[in-house]
């Protein structure tokens, strides 16, 4: 009887082990790297090196030497995250959106600096202080923000599609939301998790 019980237990254990589900998890680190590349491209030199959350630069000092050392270290001994394959972000759609955002950024940049627009906590832009702009720029700010948000939503969807997982769109958007803020230069405004505005 005891043996039969054990055999039953073994069988159910075996069944449990045999039932293997392969989950494709969202590649968070690869998505962060992709986001940082795109942000640097769109913002140009505005984009700051953001140590927080960037695995390649963890432990990096503030000096150029420190950063170089960290990069060399990362190159020689890749971390587990870095071993995760890169996301594909080089489709014509993504390149086009990126180019359009890059071009628009020249106009948006002074509005970020003036605090007129800010980065929302969901990876988009919003006009946060119309008063910071003269009347003519207020309309322009709203146009540019709406256009940039169209591009941003398009970008997140296209990256998800390009990597064969349209369902990743929300995760990619969330990743970008963090990285836009992390890469933003000092003085720009961003929305905290609770929706309150903070200045970097």
């Amino acid at each position, binding site marked *: 009887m005891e043996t039969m019980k054990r055999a039953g237990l073994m069988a159910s254990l075996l069944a449990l082990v045999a039932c293997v589900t392969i989950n494709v998890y969202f590649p968070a680190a690869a998505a962060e790297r992709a986001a940082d590349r795109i942000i640097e491209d769109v913002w140009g030199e505005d984009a700051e090196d953001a140590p927080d959350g960037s695995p390649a630069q963890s432990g990096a000092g503030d000096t150029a030497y420190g950063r170089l050392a960290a990069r060399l270290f990362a190159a020689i001994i890749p971390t587990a995250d870095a071993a995760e394959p890169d996301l*594909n972000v*080089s*489709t*014509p*759609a993504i390149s*086009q*959106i990126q180019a359009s955002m890059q071009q628009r950024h020249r106009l948006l940049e002074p509005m970020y600096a003036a605090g007129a627009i800010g980065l929302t906590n969901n990876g988009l832009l919003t006009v946060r*202080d*119309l*008063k910071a*702009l003269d*009347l*003519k720029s*207020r*309309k322009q700010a*709203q*146009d540019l*923000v*709406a*256009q940039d*948000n*169209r*591009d941003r939503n*398009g970008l997140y969807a*296209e990256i998800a599609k390009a990597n064969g997982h349209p369902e990743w769109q929300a995760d990619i958007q969330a990743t970008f939301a963090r990285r836009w803020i992390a890469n933003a230069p000092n003085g720009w405004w961003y929305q905290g998790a609770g929706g309150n505005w903070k200045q970097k």
Partner: protein
Amino acid sequence: MNCLPASGFREFQPVKTPAVKRSTASRSTTLHVLLTLLICLVGEVTWAVDELGLDIGNLSGPGWALEGLALGWSLADQRLILSADALVLPEPLGPVTGLQLSCARLQIHSDGITCSGGRMEADHPLLVDAIETFSFRFERSLGAFRIKDMVVDLETGLVRLEAAGTERSWAIDAEFEGLDLSWIQARLRLLNTDIDELTVRGRINGTMRVERHAEGAMTIGARIRGRALNFSDANGRLEGENIDLSLTTQASLHQGSVDFSSNGQWRTGLVFADPMLIEAVSGAPIEFRLIARATPEALAIKHFYLDHSGVGTVVAAATAAAGDWRRATAQIDLEVLDSGKAYVTYVQPFAPGTLLGDLQTGGRATAHIELVHGDPVNLRLRSEGAWIRDTLQRISFEDLSIDLDWRRDSIGRSRFGWAGSQFYKVPTGHAGFEFETRGGAMELTEPLSVPLLGGFLHLDRLGAENFRSPQAAWNLDGRLSGVSLEQLSEALEWPVLRGDLSGMVPKAVYRDRILTLGGALLIRAFDGDVTITDLRVEQPLGLIPRLTADIGINGLDLAALTQTYAFGRIEGRLDGRIRALELQNWRPVQFDAFLGTPEGDRSKRRISQRAVENLSSIGGGGNAAAILSKGFIGMFKDFGYRRLGIGCHLANNVCEMEGVSAAARGYYLVEGGGLPRIDVIGYERRVDWNELVTRLQAATRSSGPVVE
């Protein structure tokens, strides 16, 4: 009548004074009571005093109350003083305290009194110090009063007041000069009114008349002229700069209904009214007129007129139940003189980030719109010589001619035409068509031919269902004839292809921003057939258009394809397939393609030296030209071949290449046949797609002479 104290004398000190002729008091009106008391007092008292006082107590009427009213006579300066602790007025005006009216010269006669050199003191945020010099006259028999020459100095401007009438019907006239709006606003703030939302600055001149008619109606009229006015709200959504305007307004209130009329001219200045930015520039004012009537049940705009100089005019009339503007019944006529300016000011701000927000337009148009309970029932739109261009260069129409007549409940006939249009980089020529609409349905009345790249797109049928709803579906049946492949490939920046294209476009449906074909798109080209199946275009006018299709190629004549082709002449036939083709923004991102000599092909198969060179360069071969031009091989202009073929599996920007068969370390692009035998072997298995396109373009655009 006994005129002795009603409430009691104050500071009673008998002094001899001359007797004044006695008079009788009347009752009824509060004003009467006061004045009668005054006359009694002056007439009865026969003692000498420094100051005489009479406490009257409280008086009230609808909307006001006088508390602690008292009447006095100051002997020192010979002034009669009427004072009150407080005049309580309705909110937000609040109480006027320390009210004191006095008179320097008082004439009392049988039918009333006349006061000149009047003086008023009061404590109220809207009043400053004392008001000097005014005259007052009261006629008892008519119950009529008149106040003249009252000048209120408000520190920042003057207000002249006059009032006349009886208790039942009266009028107050005010004239103001250089009145500082910010001062008024600061004063109003002291009343705790909820006007902090809007900050105003600037000075106004004007007049105002408030009139009460005997039957109870009230009329308020004002004419205001303001210069260099500025206003702004707390969050920057409503702000005006340097506004110069004049405004005439009249409102009559009677038994709960208001008749309102207003007209104004806004001469210069800039206003941001989120999301619109409206500017009136010198010489191009914005004028408006409004006549409206509001009752507790409904609002009727009898006439609205807006003329934005150089931009357009709006004439409208509308009625709606109170608080239910969405279900208004209205007639609106628009005349647009400059659709570019009208679009930028009044349309584009409401659609940023959409196709409607990305346009540029110009030209004139007129429109007539009728709404019944909020639902459009009739729309007429006419335009000649207008143009529309998408700033993102997706679509454009030049020299548009529109005559639209849409009716919700009956058939309307419309016409739409253009001198030229462009869909992305594909231009079309002059075309026009007529169509019938009924409610949400639309149908061409006769087939349409649109000039397209040297040929035509014939539309045998173009119709729409439910085009007013999100479930709108557009259906199209058509044919292509004589479309130049050369022009098409140039327009799309593809490697240049030569020849004509014709075929069927069966049962195209556009729904939910997706265009699909109900059957195969058949194209005759180069003496062969190209069959496009499962064609689907997502968001053809969206941010990233996405096209997917399968393409079959059958029996193309290579000689015809390469006839005047810089690529080099090839004779033979070509079969092929491009499966799972996906274009994003009209550029390929993925496909599985193979093009090659058909199985069992019996046609003559020759390939020129130049084509061999170009094929070699595409397959990543070395300097084939150098080899071919040398020695024995160089004597031959072309060569026979057994079969040729090239395949590419494109994914992630990389083309996995293949040929007709495997070769040592590579693949055959051309298997030679006959003598001298030439094989073209590709060695690169993985070629960067952009690199491949560059090679192909270089090969087809080569400007050197083509020696065949």
